[in-house]
């Protein structure tokens, strides 16, 4: 199938893009890499009146350093992420998760910001952004505002973006050498969505765990944090026993769906297993 008819606008600046969104009528869709939006439009699950293509808004693409943060432009492609020297140094969890996104061709077109705004709980990057306490910079007619990850993901495919707003960039904390990271993904076949995945970043101080951040993919209608496991890991000696005990709490407070791939209780089991593996790998066990 091909998409229903729409008006096409291709701005070259954020200001022009905001104007195009404001002028676009009732149903406006913003086109980033199109790797989710175009299939959805082809299936006629979306039939926007206007499509605003950000492909030529150069200021939205790229990664820069600002003090203790990395700032990733919304239109930075997954392929850009995989070859970026700053992310290779300070954003390895993002890189690891991005390596598992779809396939080579999709990673050429798909964007970091698009994947986050799409907010599919089975997507790989939302859980990473949540685990890292990313901050989302949104531009709108009234100026810019910053939304923390805990408030950005509102529900299934729903974010805190208001009508007329645009995600311009995402701020991530730089994780230095004292952090170990691991994205552990469980899926059935290559390029399939995660049945469950776990994003772990753990900071060690000597033989102890000083801080742990764990994001869960596909364990509810939004990405979630495994808060009980995080709390249980703080201050413990690094060993398989302590990691296993903490990981046993990974499914607490989750509400995964049941579908053709897995029942909810199986997903909760997977969350514990994958959390154990991810944390163990992150601390070098």
């Amino acid at each position, binding site marked *: 199938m*091909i998409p229903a008819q*729409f008006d096409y606008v291709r701005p070259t600046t954020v200001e022009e893009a905001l104007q195009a969104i404001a002028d676009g009528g009732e149903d406006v869709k913003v086109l980033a890499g199109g790797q989710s939006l175009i299939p959805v439009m082809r299936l006629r699950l979306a039939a926007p009146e206007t499509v605003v293509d950000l492909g030529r808004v150069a200021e939205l693409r790229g990664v820069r350093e600002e003090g203790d943060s990395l700032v990733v432009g919304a239109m930075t492609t997954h392929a850009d992420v995989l070859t970026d020297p700053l992310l290779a140094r300070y954003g390895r969890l993002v890189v690891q998760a991005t390596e598992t996104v779809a396939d080579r061709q999709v990673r050429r077109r798909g964007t970091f910001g698009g994947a986050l705004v799409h907010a599919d709980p089975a997507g790989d990057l939302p859980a990473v952004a949540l685990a890292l306490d990313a901050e989302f910079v949104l531009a709108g007619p009234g100026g810019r505002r910053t939304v923390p990850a805990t408030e950005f993901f509102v529900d299934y495919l729903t974010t805190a973006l208001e009508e007329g707003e645009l995600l311009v960039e995402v701020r991530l904390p730089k994780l230095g050498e004292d952090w170990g990271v691991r994205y552990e993904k469980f899926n059935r076949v290559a390029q399939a969505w995660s049945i469950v995945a776990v994003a772990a970043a753990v900071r060690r101080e000597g033989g102890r765990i000083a801080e742990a951040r764990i994001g869960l993919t596909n364990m509810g209608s939004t990405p979630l944090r495994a808060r009980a496991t995080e709390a249980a890991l703080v201050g413990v000696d690094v060993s398989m026993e302590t990691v296993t005990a903490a990981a046993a709490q990974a499914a607490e407070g989750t509400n995964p769906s049941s579908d053709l791939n897995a029942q909810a209780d199986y997903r909760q089991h997977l969350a514990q297993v994958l959390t154990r593996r991810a944390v163990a790998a992150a601390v070098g066990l």
Partner: protein
Amino acid sequence: MTRIDVRVDGVSYQDEVEPRTLLVHYLREQVGKVGTVVGCDTSNCGACTVHLDGQAVKSCTVLAVQADGCQVTTIEGIADGATLHPVQRAFHEMHGLQCGFCTPGMIMASIDLLQENPDPSDTEVREGIEGNLCRCTGYQNIVRAVQHAAAEMRGDQGAAGNGPAEPAEAHTVAAPHVAVQA
């Protein structure tokens, strides 16, 4: 209608397209590049893979208007006159196809992979072409073909390389109908 200016397999085209036209439909129906095929229609199978400014993309999931100002290379544009591209030749020599429907996409994805990794291992080839499905499941010889092409493109054909120089043996004797015929 929106005016686009694209270069396809080295030839410039200025065309009017509807914004909703998919790149694969533009290539096939307006430019006549029917070597690029539509497989799954859902951006899974990779049969429609072409290069957009040198990078492999699924042309069923790109709008023609997004290719405005870009260079598109299809399976029809990679041979040098009558001389096949090394990856095309390797698919032929290694029997890297059965029905052939996935082949244009497999070859375009493989060329993209080899630009990035000129000497991929078996696993790296399989990961590199994970976005391309062969429903005949003839992956063994596809992997061999990619490695064979890689060796040739590196200029060390005859050197050990990663890939064997012969197609895989076909173990058809195990199939009952073959046994009956024998």
